[in-house]
């Protein structure tokens, strides 16, 4: 950090930074440390005595098949959402990056999903996909598909993926558009003079030049799927059927709500924290790289 430090005085800066430090300590560090501590303890059935058990909670967690199911669900869910929301966002951004009329109107519509809460977006889609009354559900039934996300795990997964992709399109669209606008026109013109057709120009020049944006968006989208989709899953499927849409974060929520296994739930939280730290570190290394680019 550049040392500026222009004003002298000690009391004032301490007072200025105090509110944020206080909130961080009380609502971030204290609970995080408690989770860490809790994850090494086992409580008896009545909550009367606790015992320090080292890594027993973690070991037990890693022996449970449901935990691996949740890892698998999280992986599939993230991969599908990242792939589809990035592809659609990129396609729309490429189309919007031309000099066409009405671009302002298109953009206004395309940013709307960002403002819709995941849980509310979920309700909009439930309404369309509800067997029996939903418009799309009925169309599928007429076409002979036995659509039922309440009983069919694959259908439930498809439903939450659609909602999450819809919710994320705006974000990816805006970032890809900004990335495309930053590519100098001269590079593309040079390729055109060399005789490269539009498709070829896109894959050999535009797409590689966009890779910092793409990479950044992949990380942000994974973070989104991990944490912000909880509202979608809770309203649309409740993690079901049979855990088919239960992600790691949703499992922490459900296990914690049941309240029976504090140690195991805390161990899950700690593992998630480690994943977030890894993702954030990854993202910052990349940002750092781009600065020196």
């Amino acid at each position: 950090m550049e040392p500026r430090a222009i004003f002298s005085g000690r009391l004032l800066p301490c007072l200025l930074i105090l509110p944020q430090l206080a909130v961080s300590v009380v609502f971030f560090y204290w609970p995080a440390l408690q989770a860490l501590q809790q994850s090494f303890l086992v409580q008896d059935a009545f909550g009367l005595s606790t015992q320090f058990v080292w890594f027993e909670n973690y070991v037990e967690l890693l022996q449970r098949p449901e935990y691996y199911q949740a890892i698998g669900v999280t992986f599939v869910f993230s991969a599908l959402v990242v792939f589809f929301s990035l592809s659609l966002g990129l396609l729309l951004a490429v189309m919007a990056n031309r000099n066409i009329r009405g671009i302002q109107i298109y953009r206004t519509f395309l940013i709307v999903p960002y403002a819709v809460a995941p849980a509310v977006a979920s309700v909009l889609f439930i309404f369309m996909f509800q067997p029996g009354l939903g418009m799309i559900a009925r169309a599928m039934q007429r076409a002979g598909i036995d659509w039922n996300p309440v009983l069919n795990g694959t259908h439930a997964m498809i439903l939450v993926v659609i909602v999450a992709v819809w919710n994320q399109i705006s974000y990816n669209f805006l970032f890809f558009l900004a990335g495309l606008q930053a590519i100098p026109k001269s590079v593309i013109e040079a390729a055109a003079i060399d005789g490269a057709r539009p498709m070829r120009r896109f894959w050999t020049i535009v797409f590689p030049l966009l890779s910092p944006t793409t990479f950044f968006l992949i990380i942000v989208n994974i973070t989104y799927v991990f944490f912000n989709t909880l509202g979608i899953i809770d309203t649309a499927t409740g993690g079901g059927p049979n855990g088919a849409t239960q992600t790691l974060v949703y499992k922490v929520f459900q296990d914690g709500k049941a309240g029976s296994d504090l140690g195991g739930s805390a161990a899950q939280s700690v593992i998630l924290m480690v994943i977030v730290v890894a993702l954030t570190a990854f993202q910052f290394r990349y940002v750092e790289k781009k600065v020196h680019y």
Partner: protein
Amino acid sequence: MVEHRRFGNLLPHIVLLAGVAIVAFPVYLAIIASTHDNAVIANGQMPLTPGSHAIETYWNTLVSGTGKTTREPVGGMMLNSLIMALGIAVGKIAISIISAYAIVFFAFPFRMTAFWTIFITLMLPVEVRIFPTYKITSDLHLLDSYAGLILPLIASATATLLFRQFFMTVPKELVEASKIDGAGPVRFFFDTLLPLSVTNIAALFVILFIYGWNQYLWPLLITTRDDMQTIVIGIKKIIDVHDALTEWQVAMATAVLAMLPPVAVVVLMQRLFVKGLIETEK
């Protein structure tokens, strides 16, 4: 763009129109459904044109509460959401602008320690520390209160980083000049720095308002009283009743009302929104 195209810009228009249709259709359907009678919706024969029950449905939803499921009227939930969203946005901006000011413009012991202490909170989203945070909030007697809804979500490393970055671009000469004029740190902050930060504050406000309004997990956990619920939580409870009893017209009217404020903010302040979005993330 580069070469002459025979079909002009037909393809982009088709793709963008399809994109807009996909994005807008669920919202359109919700608006239409909120104007129809529940019986029409429940048998799956809802037309794609507005019905005649709009006034009745919105009145019931907003003011009088809905008969069958005896829910709180949504008007009160919207007020809770508004207080929470404004509290989070204003609170985050206030505490992070002063902490960034301290970090950039002062030399004091443990400055870097303080900076890193704030920075690391970036890695602890509320979802991973949810139950311990719940317990602390409950120990502090903040359940079912606005303070409980707002405070745990208020510390933001992102906002502090944004202001810090912006403050570091403020030329030294500006500070020197105001020092020569006899201004102390407090006057410099209010007379020079704050006016310079107005656009940044506004852009951040747009993003944080949406963030606050759309919160789900935290209000779900810490509000038990119906009159403390936010609208995003309320909507889940409306569709959570047994399938045949769901009042879809009310659920959809609630969805429309829940979308209205954040969508209006994004659409009306589009330039600030895009600026805020791209700058807070980079």
